């Protein structure tokens, strides 16, 4: 995730307010942040996806109302996300007789540095060499076992583990670069 200076971000937002097709750039820069933020508080993948989609649809629909007050665009998105998660929890509580689990994480105290770090990590996966990227995606996004990946790629389990190792090693190095 590239470092966006305040004024760059402001320009991007203003451009998107005039021409909504420019929203793609804001989406690209913030997708992993929002996803990581929601994933931190909602452990279920399907739910994380639903909420992420909801946040960006809301953001796009309300972009015209966004007023630049000096805080980063991501903070606005986090606020939409936080509200969406809370709404979802309330809905669940109404729907089921049992109490929604009011775990510590469902409060708004989310470690934003941790979210930022994971977002950078998610984005860094795209910069891996293709064979490493594919193994990492299959292992962590598709949640496949080493054997399943080996079968699918037609490689030995040893080779897949090796690619996983190199991929994680590269990711660690990339995080340290930033």
């Amino acid at each position, binding site marked *: 995730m590239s470092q966006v200076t305040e004024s760059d971000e402001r320009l991007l937002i203003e451009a998107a307010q005039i021409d*909504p*097709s420019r*929203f*793609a750039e804001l*989406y*690209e820069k913030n*997708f*992993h942040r929002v*996803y990581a933020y929601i*994933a931190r508080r909602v*452990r279920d*993948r399907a739910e*994380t*996806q639903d909420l*992420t*989609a909801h946040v*960006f*649809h809301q953001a*796009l629909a309300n972009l015209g109302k966004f007023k630049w007050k000096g805080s980063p665009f991501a903070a606005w998105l986090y606020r939409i996300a936080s509200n969406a998660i809370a709404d979802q929890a309330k809905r669940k509580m109404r729907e089921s007789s049992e109490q929604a689990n009011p775990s510590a994480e469902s409060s708004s105290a989310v470690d934003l540095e941790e979210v930022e*770090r*994971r977002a950078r*990590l*998610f984005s860094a*996966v*795209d910069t891996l060499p*293709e064979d490493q990227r*594919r193994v*990492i*995606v299959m*292992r*962590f*996004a*598709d*949640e496949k*076992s*080493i054997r399943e990946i080996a079968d*699918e790629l037609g490689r030995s389990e040893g080779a897949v*583990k*090796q690619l*996983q*190792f190199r991929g*994680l*090693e590269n*990711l*660690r190095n990339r*995080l340290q670069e930033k």
Partner: protein
Amino acid sequence: MAERSIIDQLDDAVAALAEGRQIDLTKLEPELSALAGVAQGLIGLPHDTFKAELQQQLIRRDSMSSPAEQLETNAVSSVSLYMCIAGASAALDFYRDAFGAKELSRLVEPDGKIGHAEIQIGNIVLMIADEYPDYGVLSPKTIGGSPVRLHLYVPDADAFAERAIKAGATLVRPIQDQFYGDRSGQVADPFGYTWIVATHKKDVPTEEMQKEFDKFTREHSPKKSSEAYSVNEDKMRRENRRAVTPYLTVHKPAELIDFVTEAFGGIEHFRATGSGAGMHAEVSIGDSVVMIGGAEHIEPKPTAIHLYVPDVDQVYERALKAGAKSLMPVVDQPYGERSGGVEDVHGNRWYIATPFVPLQTIAQDLHTVTVYFHPIGAQRFIDFVTNAFGGKELMRHAEGDMVMHAKVQIRDSVIELGEARYPEQPMPTAIYLYVDDVDGVYEQALKAGGVSMLPPTDQPFGDRNAWVQDPFDNVWYIAAPLTATKST
């Protein structure tokens, strides 16, 4: 028990994390701990497809202007391209190398056939599958081209096309600024799809665009399309004539014209009988013009021609029906075309071919008609056309010293040649060659080893020309329209 390698230990940690177990990173070796920490952060990594699909949803929404419109249009789901490709697996590799496509998924049959795959280029997702003829799923190669072109907006069309061409795409139209504000061009992939690659440079008001479009259509209207040849107009004939025009000299030119018309859909524009009772005619085939002439008492000069057509099988059959004999049945060639050969009753040899890539992709250097020379001493022949006419060698395929196949550019035309290897070769021929300066080129041709048959002469039909026989017995009619000669 032997110590497990760090690679295995790391996988143990990943497996534990994947099952939702907590692991105490502080208890691990520092190196292992750091990598397991990265793995922990990756748990719950979003799917590429999810990110791409959400972006597409948002973009679709973007393009709607009002909420009401959004509601109405939401009823129609989006259109996604589903491309059928013979050799889908190779195509996935190609799109990765050529377009930087990211593979999102693939379903593979035991025999390696791709049942379904998804790739992402920029923010679009394309679906790809192999051919399934039983289900009527056919690729452009089988159908003979695709009527659908793929249009990509990219940040830098020039760089994008360059990378694609390096990976094996063919340039169909060079990247250039367009009147509608884009900088764009076209490339063809090896699987039969054409891609329009564009970068938006500036917004052009519709009014201005219409003006430019009117200008564009005026400039481009009648030329190029094959129907245009039915307009029998001298000017157009000249415009479509390129520097190198083969002159097919035979005993019975009228019969050859009939053959070319019947077999290749040739259109006769011009026919005259000269003072020596020889006939001269000009016939267009596709985007090219050939000259046909001769008489009973004139020594024939049959020609070998590489003829590019949209459907080689059909044209080959028509040629046989029109009286030609087969030299070689139509087969797929390893060099990227499907071709067959026939010889007409006058001795001309027609190498008929359809490239695997769409036909328009050859337009860059090859046209419907390309003359094929079979000289004895191909290298010396290349030297001659280089020295005499400023020819530029484009490619060659040689076995040892022997030039099996080469292409040489002469002005706006390309000729092909290969060392004479068969009894009927070398097949010397005649070429009508348009130049700017007849006298200068004539001198050069003599210096390069040609023999003068006629010094530069103003002809009554409006050309100044000179005749030179090269050391390989080909005759070159070096010519320029009379008005142009004076102006240079």
